[in-house]
């Protein structure tokens, strides 16, 4: 497998600079590109907030006794807010940001189907986030992000828990509106000649995610409505003393929240398909299998919710849910093997986007394997509510999704801003994320297997050594985020290396316009390339050459494959 030591950033220095108008990102706009950036920026801000709370958790757990937190209640509030912010205000909105920015561009459309609704869906998020955080002044929510009754009903006296429920309700509604918009856009606004199986895989992933959103989130809305009524209107849906049921919440909540895991992962799968193919300079392996496996995951995701309830579930129902939970590994495995096959024999550019993509592959696989482990009833009962579970979902959501988001930032930043990010800093960012990530979350498997429960501020002294390794790694991991922030600020305001329209020599439509794209995205009606992943062919080279003539070059200028890469005779390799 050949690699290119020097990544292929198509960069030119001191070219005409795209203007940066920061103010427009703070105003109401119906332009999907602005809304996409708004999502990304807001989500990243909440990531910093949620990450700071995570640092607080890890600081507290440096010693077995309480030290940073005044009480167990304060610690409960800390992890409740950390989980809620990371899921509902970071990962989901960040992926929605990529979707908003990229889907219309990839489809050659001028905007989303409902631009005004798109803006409305975004602007529901800031008030929800503020409401959530304001809970700190009203007795913060303390029942975890899962808000299990009776904790969220009888043992969360402050108004913060009600504010939490209202905020999540708003975020859910925003999510549904966004999902509807994506489905309509993808169904109705593809350009002529672009069939379902000609769409980029990221668009497939957003479609599958949107289907999950519109089918699952209403159950969260129903559950939250009842939770709010229990808290403010005197009903007792979740209080068995008055005819209610605590298991009712668990069933309805997980009917949403397990599919929600795929809401948080499937778009990242889509991003990975794009990045791995482009930076391996090879056609994607198993296009249809990857596309359809996204839909399979969306469907199967609705059949597994009760594996979160193995310890409280009727024993007869455990085995069917164990089987469905394990089956979901099949479409996921199809993707993993397809991605590996995509990179196999490619001329890999080990740039930041590719490194994060490979980082995703390595860490997500660990999360997937531990997922199969906790799908097994006897093992799950042993590790239920321990740090093993914490480790599992962080390998999926951080080792998977967050690394994909980082990769996506490096990959699409040139398109969004018109400027390149610094590669050296990008690589520092990768290594200082990937290694500490492993040492933060892998030892949690051991802590969990040895019996350390999650959601406790005070733990048995024998776990201290493991927790110190975890906490110190977590601090490094937290600090590494600032490398990306510095890189973004420096690249935008000081470094200013202009990207050109298509610095990665990609074939999907978002690269067939200037960087950043103009209002309404394209200068005419864009014509999609026959195969969005047809790298290494003469046709692709001709297409890219024509594109450069039309839009201006990206550096270095395109060259015939045989001149640029003497080994391009290898199957499917080359620009």
């Amino acid at each position, binding site marked *: 497998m050949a690699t290119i030591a020097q990544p292929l950033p198509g960069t030119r220095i001191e070219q005409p600079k795209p203007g940066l108008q920061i103010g427009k990102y703070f105003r109401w706009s119906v332009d999907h590109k602005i809304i996409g950036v708004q999502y990304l920026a807001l989500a990243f801000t909440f990531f910093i907030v949620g990450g700071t709370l995570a640092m607080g958790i890890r600081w507290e757990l440096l010693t077995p006794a309480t030290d940073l937190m005044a009480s167990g209640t304060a610690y409960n509030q800390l992890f409740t807010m950390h989980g809620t912010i990371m899921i509902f205000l970071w990962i989901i909105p960040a992926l929605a940001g990529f979707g908003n920015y990229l889907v219309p561009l990839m489809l050659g459309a001028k905007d989303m189907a409902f631009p005004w609704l798109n803006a409305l869906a975004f602007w529901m998020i800031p008030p929800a986030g503020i409401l959530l955080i304001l809970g700190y002044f009203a007795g913060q929510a303390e029942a975890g992000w899962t808000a299990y009754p009776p904790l969220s009903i009888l043992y969360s006296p402050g108004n913060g828990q009600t504010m939490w429920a209202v905020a999540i309700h708003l975020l859910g509604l925003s999510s549904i509106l966004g*999902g509807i*918009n994506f489905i*309509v856009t993808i169904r109705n606004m593809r350009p002529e000649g672009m069939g379902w199986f000609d769409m980029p895989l990221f668009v497939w992933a957003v479609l599958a995610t949107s289907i999950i959103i519109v*089918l699952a989130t*209403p159950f969260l*809305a129903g559950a939250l409505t009842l939770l709010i009524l229990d808290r403010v209107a005197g009903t007792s849906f979740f209080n068995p003393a008055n*005819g209610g*049921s605590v298991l009712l919440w668990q069933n*309805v909540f997980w009917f949403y929240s397990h599919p929600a895991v795929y809401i948080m992962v499937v778009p990242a799968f889509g991003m990975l398909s794009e990045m791995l193919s482009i930076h391996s300079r090879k056609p994607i392996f198993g296009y249809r299998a990857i596309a359809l496996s996204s839909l399979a995951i969306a469907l199967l995701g609705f059949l597994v919710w009760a594996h979160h309830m193995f310890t409280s579930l009727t024993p007869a129902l455990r085995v069917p849910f164990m089987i469905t939970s394990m089956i979901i590994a099949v479409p996921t495995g199809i993707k993993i093997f397809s991605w590996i096959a995509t990179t196999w024999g490619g001329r890999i550019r080990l740039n930041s986007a590719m490194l994060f993509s490979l980082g995703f592959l390595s860490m997500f696989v660990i999360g997937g394997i531990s997922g199969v482990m906790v799908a097994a009833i006897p093992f799950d009962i042993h590790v239920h509510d321990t740090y093993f579970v914490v480790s599992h979902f962080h390998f999926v959501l951080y080792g998977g999704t967050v690394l994909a988001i980082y990769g996506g930032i490096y990959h699409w930043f040139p398109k969004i801003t018109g400027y390149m990010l610094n590669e050296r800093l990008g690589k520092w960012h990768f290594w200082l994320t990937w290694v500490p990530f492993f040492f933060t979350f892998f030892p949690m498997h051991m802590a969990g297997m040895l019996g350390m429960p999650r959601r406790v501020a005070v733990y048995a002294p024998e776990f201290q050594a493991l927790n110190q390794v975890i906490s110190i790694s977590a601090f490094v991991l937290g600090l590494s985020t600032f490398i990306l922030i510095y890189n973004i600020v420096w690249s935008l305001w000081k470094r200013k290396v202009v990207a050109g329209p298509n610095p990665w020599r990609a074939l999907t439509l978002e690269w067939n316009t200037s960087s950043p794209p103009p209002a309404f995205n394209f200068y005419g009606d864009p014509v999609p390339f026959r195969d969005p992943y047809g790298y290494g062919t003469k046709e692709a080279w001709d297409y890219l050459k024509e594109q450069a003539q039309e839009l201006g070059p990206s550096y270095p200028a395109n060259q015939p494959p045989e001149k640029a890469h003497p080994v391009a005779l290898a199957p499917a390799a080359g620009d």
Partner: protein
Amino acid sequence: MTLNQDRIERPLTREEQIALKNKRTGITVFQISWILVFVCLVVVYFQLRSEQVVWPPAGVQPAALLPGLLATAALFASAALVWRGLKTARAGHLHGLMQQWLVALALGVAFVVIAGAQWSAMSGDNAYGMVFRVMVGYHLLHAIVIAIYMAAVLRSVRTGHVTVRDLWPAEAGARLWYFVVAAWVLFFVPLYLV
């Protein structure tokens, strides 16, 4: 041709056709999504019911069937009139739409009054009453809001803002009213029949 005539008689442009297609797809997806909140409440009903030895709990009177049937009949009749009204309008007779929708709205009000009376008569201090009140109340909320929207559409027809050329507001109102009917059927079966 005056500007107003142009607005009424000109065929839809390609952009307008795409916009209409988007609206139709959008509202369909929205309805599929939102009906699931009602399905969720049905699930809630059955789970609460499954955990009780006697249903409704001892000493609690279930909602009377006859008023429920009357309300349902009114709702079905109103939906039929909404459908006929829209069909008439598509044939170019906006006056027919107005007449039939006015009767449909009156039937809708009758539904709200009957179901509302049952809602207010039910005590919420037991599991059955609690879930009945939430389900029927939630449905009534939708019925009232959508009826108000339909009344606004009628007003727009009268003022000439909805024309035969662009019947989307009326079509949206009709689709939403069918949604009210479908949601009521979902609730009626467990609450009154099973």
